C-alpha cells in the first residue's frame, strides 16, 4: 500500500472517496438448479479498489457479469448513484459508465487491434463511415499509455496471450468508465506488464474511478486493495478494509469450513507397484506458438496413491493430463501403464487399457447435455454391455443404478436429464462414468471446480475409496488447500516443468505456493521495492 498514499491524497480532497457508486442489493442468480449467487449485498466506492476473493465457483465472476450487464439476476437489483438500474445488455451498462475486463478474452482474433478496441463503438466520419485515421491515433495513444509497443493494424491472432490481454485492458480504458471491473486481468501478463497495470489502476483511482479487482494471485490483489470482500458458495461472507489485510485471513475466509478428507499417507506405495510412469514428456502449446506447454516431465504414480499436480494457471497441468489421456500428442517422451507403453494409443484404446480423464471443463468436455444421467454414466462402458447386435438394457440399468449409488449421485433416477443435476452431482456422474470402466489410473483436472464445499469433500472421499481399492489417482488443482489435504504427494508444476515434489505432511501452504508461483513472488518484491 506504500505506493498508493500519494494517490489517495487528491482523491480525499475531491471528497469522493466514500461515495458509493454502484451497489448490488440482494442479488441472486440461478443457472438451472445451480445457485451461483444467494442474495448478495455489495458496494463499490469511487477512487477505491475493491478486491474480490473466493475460490472457483464462489460466485465472483457471476456477480461481475450481472454488474456489467452480461447476465441478468434471478432476484435483487443494482443501484447506480442510488438510483435503481437494470442493465439489459453490456452496452447499456457501458453507456452508464461500467466497463469490464473479462476473465476470458473477448476479442475477435481475425480483426486488427484497432478494430477490436473500437468494436461496437466505432468512431465515425461525417459521412457515417469508420474514421480509421482517428481510431488509429486513439489506439496508439491507449497502447502507449499501457507501455505496449503494438501496431494497431496487427491482427489480434498474431499477438501472444499477454498482449491480447493488454488489448482487452486497453478496450476497457477506451470508454470513460466510472466503474472498472477487472476479472483476472493479469493471468497472462508478465511481471513488468502487471506493474504497468498497477500504475494505470492508480491513475484511474486518481480520476475517481471505482475499481473492482479479482485475481487468483492473492498477494497481488491484497497489494492493490483498498477494500476486500470474500465470497464463498455464492454468498458474501466477509469484508475487510485494505489496512491490515493479510493473506492468512483471506485464505481462511475463502476456505471457510471446507473439509477435504485427509489421505492416509502412512503406507509406502512404491511397494504396491508403479501404475503410471511418465518419462520426459513434452507437449506443444495448443496456441500454435511453438512453445512447449509441458517441458520434459517425468514422474510415477503408484496404485493406491493420490498424487496432486499443483500449479497456477498456465503451468501446463491441463496439457499434461490431456496428453496422458490421449487428446494431445506428446512431442517426445514415453507414457507407460503397468509397464506397457500407451503413448501412441487413441483415447478410446487408453480407456480400454485403464487410463481415463475427468476433464476440467465439465460443460464443454464432461457431460452430454441432451441425455439422461443413465446414458451419461454408461457412455464409456456401453459397448461392453451388449449381446451383439443389441444392447442388454437390463444389464445396463443394473450397472447404472450401481454407479449412482456408488458415486452417491443425488438424482431422481437414471432417466433424469443430466442438466437437472447440481454441478457437484454432474461431476460425480462424469467421474462415475470413468470409474465404471474400472480404470487403473484416473486422471482428474480440477475435479472440484465450480461445485459447492459439501460436494468437494464428497468427491475427495469417493477418490479415497477408489484409491483404497488400488486405483492410482492423479489430479490437478490450483487450490492449495485441496492439494495439501487430499494428496499423498504433490508435484508442483511451473512453466511446463515439475519443479519440486512435496510431501503434504511436511509442507506448508507458503512453500508450495512459492514453488508454484516463483514469478509471482518475484513480482511481489518488485512492487514493494
Amino acid at each position: 500500500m506504500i505506493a498508493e498514499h500519494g494517490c489517495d491524497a487528491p482523491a480525499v480532497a475531491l471528497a469522493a472517496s466514500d461515495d458509493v457508486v454502484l451497489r448490488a442489493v440482494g442479488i441472486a442468480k440461478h443457472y438451472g438448479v445451480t445457485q451461483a449467487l444467494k442474495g448478495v449485498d455489495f458496494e463499490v466506492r469511487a477512487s477505491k479498489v475493491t478486491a474480490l476473493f473466493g475460490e472457483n465457483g464462489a460466485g465472483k465472476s457471476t456477480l461481475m457479469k450481472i454488474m456489467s450487464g452480461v447476465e441478468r439476476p434471478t432476484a435483487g437489483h443494482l443501484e447506480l448513484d442510488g438510483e435503481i438500474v437494470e442493465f439489459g445488455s453490456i452496452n447499456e451498462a457501458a453507456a452508464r459508465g461500467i466497463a469490464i475486463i473479462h476473465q476470458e478474452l473477448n476479442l475477435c482474433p481475425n480483426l486488427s487491434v484497432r478494430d477490436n478496441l473500437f468494436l461496437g463503438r466505432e468512431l465515425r466520419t461525417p459521412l457515417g463511415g469508420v474514421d480509421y485515421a482517428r481510431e488509429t491515433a486513439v489506439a496508439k495513444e491507449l497502447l502507449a499509455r499501457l507501455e505496449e509497443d503494438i501496431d494497431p493494424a496487427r491482427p489480434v491472432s498474431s499477438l501472444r496471450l499477454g498482449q491480447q490481454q493488454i488489448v482487452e485492458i486497453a478496450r476497457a480504458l477506451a470508454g470513460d468508465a466510472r466503474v472498472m471491473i477487472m476479472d483476472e486481468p493479469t493471468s497472462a501478463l508478465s511481471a513488468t506488464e502487471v506493474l504497468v497495470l498497477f500504475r494505470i489502476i492508480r491513475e484511474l483511482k486518481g480520476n475517481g474511478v471505482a475499481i473492482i479487482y479479482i485475481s487468483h494471485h492473492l498477494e497481488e490483489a491484497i497489494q492493490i486493495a483498498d477494500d476486500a470482500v470474500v465470497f464463498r458458495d455464492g454468498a458474501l461472507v466477509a469484508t475487510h478494509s485494505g489496512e491490515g489485510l493479510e493473506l492468512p485471513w483471506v485464505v481462511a475466509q475463502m476456505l471457510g469450513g471446507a473439509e477435504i478428507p485427509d489421505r492416509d499417507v502412512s503406507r509406502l506405495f512404491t511397494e504396491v507397484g508403479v501404475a503410471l510412469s511418465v518419462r520426459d514428456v513434452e507437449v506443444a502449446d495448443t496456441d500454435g506458438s511453438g512453445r512447449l506447454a509441458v517441458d520434459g516431465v517425468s514422474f510415477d504414480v503408484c496404485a493406491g496413491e493420490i498424487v496432486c499436480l499443483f500449479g497456477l494457471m498456465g503451468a501446463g497441468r491441463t496439457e499434461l493430463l490431456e496428453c496422458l489421456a490421449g487428446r494431445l500428442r506428446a512431442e517426445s517422451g514415453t507414457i507407460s501403464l503397468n509397464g506397457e507403453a500407451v503413448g501412441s494409443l487413441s483415447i478410446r484404446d487408453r480407456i480400454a487399457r485403464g487410463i481415463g480423464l475427468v476433464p476440467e471443463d465439465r460443460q464443454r468436455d464432461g457431460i452430454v447435455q441432451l441425455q439422461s444421467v443413465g446414458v451419461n454414466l454408461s457412455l464409456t462402458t456401453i459397448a461392453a454391455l451388449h449381446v451383439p447386435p443389441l444392447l442388454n438394457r437390463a444389464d445396463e440399468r443394473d450397472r447404472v443404478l450401481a454407479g449412482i449409488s456408488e458415486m452417491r449421485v443425488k438424482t431422481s433416477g437414471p432417466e433424469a436429464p443430466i442438466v437437472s443435476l447440481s454441478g457437484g452431482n454432474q461431476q460425480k456422474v462424469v467421474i462415475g462414468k470413468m470409474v465404471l470402466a474400472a480404470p487403473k489410473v484416473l486422471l482428474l483436472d480440477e475435479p472440484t471446480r465450480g461445485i459447492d464445499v459439501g460436494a468437494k469433500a464428497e468427491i475427495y472421499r469417493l477418490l479415497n475409496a477408489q484409491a483404497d481399492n488400488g486405483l492410482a489417482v492423479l489430479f490437478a488443482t490450483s487450490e492449495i488447500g485441496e492439494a495439501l489435504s487430499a494428496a499423498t504427494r504433490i508435484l508442483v508444476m511451473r512453466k511446463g516443468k515439475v519443479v519440486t515434489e512435496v510431501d503434504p505432511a511436511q509442507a506448508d501452504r507458503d512453500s508450495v505456493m512459492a514453488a508454484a508461483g516463483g514469478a509471482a513472488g518475484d513480482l511481489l518484491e518488485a512492487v514493494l521495492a
Partner: protein
Amino acid sequence: MTLEVGGVARRPRVNLNALLIEGRAFLALVLAVVIFSLLSPHFLTGDNLILMTRHVAINATVAIGLLMVILNGGIDLSVGSIVGLSGVVSGYLLQGWNIPFTDRTAYLPVWAVVIVSLIVGASIGLVNGFLIARLKIAPFIATLGMLYVARGLALVITNGVTFNDLRGEPQLGNTGFVRYLASRPLGIPMPIWVMGAFAIIFSLLLNRTPFGRWLYATGSNERAAELSGVPVRRVKIWVYVFSGICAAAVGMLLAADLPAATPRGGEFYELNAIAAVVMGGAALSGGRGTVRGTLIGAFLIGFLVDGLVLVGVSVFWQQVIKGAVIILAVAVDQAQQTLHRHRAGAKAVRAASGGPPDPPDRAVTIQQQKVTVT
C-alpha cells in the same frame, strides 16, 4: 435425496417433452388429414392413402438416412444426387457390357445389380465421411461438393440420356429389377415395405445398439463423447455411409417405378428430406431426433403436398404453403424448447429457495482438515 436402488420403478416415466415435440407434428398431421378429407371426398380413400404413402415412403427413406447425419450434427446435401446416381448405375448395369473382340454381352444378375448400386451409394457416403471426419471439411461444403460430383457422374455414365429399358432379357437371367422393385406384395407398393424395413432397422440401431448411443452422445457433445472413449470419427464416417445407402435404395425404387433411370432423378430430394427430419423434432445442431418423428415429418409434408394437389390449390401456392408450414413447425419447436428451459429454470429456483441444499452425509465421518491457517 439419495436414490434407493430397490425403490426405483422398472419402467421409466414417459418423457413428456419428447412426446409433446413429436405429438405436435402428429397433431398437425391429423389436422391436415381432417381438413383435406372435408375438402375432398377422394382424400380419405384406400387407393389415395396408398398412393400418398408411396410418395411419402420415397422421401421418408431418404430422410431416415439423413436423420443419422443430422443426429451427428452434420448435414448431407448429396442424397438427392446419390438417388440419381444409384438409379443410373442400376440402369447401366442392366444394359450389360459388350465383351471386347466378341459379339457377346455380359450381364449381372439382378441381386448383384442391387448390391452394386447400394455399394455405390455407400461409397459416396464413405467419401463424404472421410472428407468430414478425416480432412475436417465442413459437412455443408463437403456434401455440397459431392452433390455436384455424384450428379456429374450420373450424367457422365449416361451421357445425359435416360436408360429406358430396365426390364432385362429372360434368356439372360437378368429380369426382375422392375418386377420386384415395382411390385406390390399384399397390395402395398414396394417403397412402403422398404420404408418400413429401414425404419425398423434404424430404430433398433439408434435405440438398442452401442452405435446409437454413441451417435446421440457425439451429436450432443462431441468432445465429451471422445473423452468418454466413443470412437467419434468412426461414428461420423458411418452416418454418411448409412445416408448414402438409404438414398441408393430410393434411387433404385424410383428407377424401377418409372421404369427408367434418368440422371436427373432425385433432384432436390435433399431439401424435402431435411424438411421431414426437422419437422419431426430433430435438432440441426445434433443429438436430438427419432426415426418415429422423422416418419411423422415425412407424412406431414407428403400428405400436405398431395392434399393441396387434390383440392386444386395452384402449384405456385403449394410451394408457398409448404415453405410456410416448414418454418412454422420449426418456430413452434424453438418456442417449445425455450419454454421448457424456462420452466426447468423456474422449478430450480423454487427448489433452491426451499430448504437447505444437499444435506450432509452422516454416514461418512468428515475427517479433520489438515491445513490450519494461522
